[in-house]
């Protein structure tokens, strides 16, 4: 009975996202028809650009990484009930730190500089994420507001650097010098753009899964997220958990910034992130805060991104806006779907609890007092 229930829970958590994505694509198809485009042609060109060849698959993977890492972090913080809305800013400070190390740091053998730069990116992101964490823990200030505000600080800091001190002399394109080739993340799948960031990403997924599922810190996160007052009464330091969760969340986003610079872009460019950190929020929700679910959702968004580029080149007159529209629709459908499932299961649970109460609690009373 309960095994069946658990099984059906897993089925739902797979079914809802899949159905939602299908519905989102269908809706997007209707919009394409409405705008006078043949949806079959459009989807076909998207398919070939995202999954049609090994190069296309590689592109999807590359586009997945900068979404996956911050989404993992957002999911981690959300387990503790914390909304890290500011992953975008943490990506930027991570990118800044990684670029700084790669350009001006020591040149170490065996990709030591790369590792150091990634580490710097992660630490910078952690620091940026820890600020809202500390403010929340010490003063009760909403991390939603502060983390979001810090995005603009980070973006403007990057803009200042690439337009000012780090601008290549005698140029106007707001970007730094390319980082030395030895400091970049090497291509690991020849014939594609897939770089060693994919290894970093896989390790990050495993690490987050492990922390969430197998460590006492993971259990503390879940306790604080589930009922922070009960966690506090039970002796768990909610403040420490909050700060560490936000810092870890920021670290993953900062790492994404470093991976993006050292793997894909090769330099820090003004506005290099088209909002990966914000998309990551939707991905984290779509993935239901589960590391594997987040991997799947990131791949979906990566594929849509890669496919969107193909759509623009292949189908004349189609606005690439259809891509974010599809992404947004997918998230909306998932949230609605999950809401419906939750409602149904709550009803079923209430019924089951009633039955159980009848079965279990009716037992003779102990022989205490009349």
């Amino acid at each position, binding site marked *: 009975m309960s095994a069946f229930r658990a099984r059906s829970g897993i089925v739902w958590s797979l079914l809802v996202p899949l159905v939602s994505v299908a519905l989102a694509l269908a809706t997007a198809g209707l919009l394409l028809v409405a705008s006078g485009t043949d949806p079959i042609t459009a989807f076909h060109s998207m398919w070939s650009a995202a999954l049609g060849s090994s190069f296309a698959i590689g592109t999807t993977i590359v586009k997945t990484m900068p979404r996956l890492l911050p989404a993992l972090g957002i999911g981690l913080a959300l387990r503790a009930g914390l909304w890290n809305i500011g992953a975008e800013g943490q990506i930027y400070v991570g990118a800044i730190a990684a670029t700084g190390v790669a350009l001006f740091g020591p040149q170490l053998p065996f990709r030591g500089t790369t590792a150091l730069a990634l580490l710097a990116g992660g630490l910078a992101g952690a620091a940026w994420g820890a600020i809202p964490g500390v403010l929340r823990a010490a003063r009760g200030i909403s991390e939603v507001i502060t983390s979001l505000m810090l995005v603009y600080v980070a973006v403007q800091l990057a803009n200042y650097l690439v337009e000012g001190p780090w601008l290549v002399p005698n140029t106007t394109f707001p970007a730094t010098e390319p980082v030395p080739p030895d400091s970049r993340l090497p291509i690991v799948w020849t014939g594609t753009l897939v770089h060693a960031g994919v290894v970093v990403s896989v390790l990050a997924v495993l690490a987050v899964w492990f922390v969430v599922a*197998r460590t*006492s810190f993971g259990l503390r996160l879940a306790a604080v997220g*589930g009922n922070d007052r*009960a966690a506090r009464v039970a002796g768990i330091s909610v403040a420490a958990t909050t700060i560490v969760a936000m810092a870890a969340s920021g670290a993953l986003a900062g790492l994404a910034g470093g991976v993006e610079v050292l793997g894909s872009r090769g330099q820090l460019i003004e506005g290099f992130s088209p909002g990966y950190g914000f998309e990551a929020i939707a991905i984290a929700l779509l993935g239901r805060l589960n590391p594997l679910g987040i991997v799947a959702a990131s791949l979906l968004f990566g594929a849509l991104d890669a496919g969107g580029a193909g759509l623009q080149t292949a189908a004349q007159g189609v606005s690439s806006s259809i891509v974010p529209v599809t992404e947004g629709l997918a998230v909306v459908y998932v949230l609605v779907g999950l809401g419906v499932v939750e409602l149904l299961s709550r009803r079923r649970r209430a019924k089951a609890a009633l039955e159980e109460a009848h079965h279990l609690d009716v037992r003779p009373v102990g022989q205490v007092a009349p």
Partner: protein
Amino acid sequence: MRRGPGDVAAARPLVSLRHVTKAYPGVLANDDVSLDLGQGEVHGLLGENGAGKTTLMGILYGLHRPDAGRILFRGSEVAITEPRDAMALGIGYVQQHFSLIPTLTVAENLVLALHFGGRRIGLRESESTVRELSRRYGLDVEPGARVDELSVGQQQRAELLKALARRPSVLILDEPSALLSPQEAEHLGTVIRQLADDDGIGVILISHKLEEVLSVVDRITVLRRGRLVRTLDAAEATRGLLGELMVGELQAGEEAYERADRGEPAAVLEVSDLWVRGGRGAPAVQGVSLTLRRGEILGIAGLEGSGQVELVEALAGVRTPERGRVVLGGRDVSRLPVAERQRLGIGHIPPDRRRDGLVPTLTVAENLTLTTLGHGGFSRFGILRRGAIRRHAAELVRRFDVRVPSPDVKVSTLSGGNQQKVVVARELWRQPAVVLSCYPTWGLDFAAASAVHRELVRQRNEGAAVLLASMDLDELLLVADRIAVMQGGRLMGELPAREATAERLGLMMGGAG
């Protein structure tokens, strides 16, 4: 075959405890207790928690030294100063808590156990011993199975087997069926009879399950508060009689729980001039001083808003006091965080299980480990020991009678009474020196409330200092030993429970004082 009354008494006793006395600070654990055990006799040892059963058996096994008294073995006096001496005489002890090494197999455990008993055998021999004993007593234990993969019942059998492998002449079984299913317990009874009847082993059986005891033993000795009440033949014992002997005559009316009455035992928690701010910044506790002693339940009566909740929270560490001292075992803990105070021996049942006690999204097992994540053996280097957590949860669920299909279900699916049992189990299983409870039976039905009361009384009887804050005067009159009244953040006075009546307390609570 069970012996008739008189047979045993006629035979020369195998073991005799004579006038054994053992005192601990504040408690006389054994007071002039004498007990005879004949060859082939199963002797039930009964008594409430804290009656001194385990202490007495500890003395026989050399775990404790008696202050006075003698032990005779086959008629001659023996000195048992450590378990090794007891083992040499052929005395085996299966304790309530398992002593098997979880990561080793049953056979490996046996090798170790016999090794420490001075007998060396190889793994092969150990395996065949396990098999032979299993067959002989129908114990069904696989020698090659790892202990942590065994069910609790199997572990219990392995534990028994370990004791049997030493070929004992006397076997002490402390609550052997506490964790067993009814079927397993019944089988255990058969095995115990077999040990006595076929092998002539003298068995001392400690148990709380009266039916079970009555169905197995030849004679019964009842202890109460360290004293021997009576030794009687099983034939003349009935459930009712035993119950009466164990708890003393029930007093009239609601006096169902024994009161603590042990003179002036040691103070465990001392609170002086405590000031605590409430939720809206108003002073909720204003200069409260109180002393909580070992082995008593101090009731705090008060209406909503009287400051009870804030007082308890300040003692537990959930709230920081403005001023004043909270001294636990000689140390000022008033500024220590919750976790630190728990480590020092405070258990806390908060007022609202849903709001303050449980994390609804976590499982029963996870909720049961929340207070001991850092130091309960449930994590190593920050990595959860999931097997240990699961086993621990299964044990607590049984021990505290939480009705739940599995410890892995979400705690939110439980009924209120069972949720409260989860909180109670989590806070009390470690037998904290101080138990703080605030409205612990709020919203519970009679059966669930009684279960909580029994547990508080049990903790008290085992030496805990219990504070019970309640709005329910009947509850306080039922279980508390002293009752203090709180009103407007101040303690208005205190009465021994014997002198307290609802009217007198009600007047004090209303502020007439």
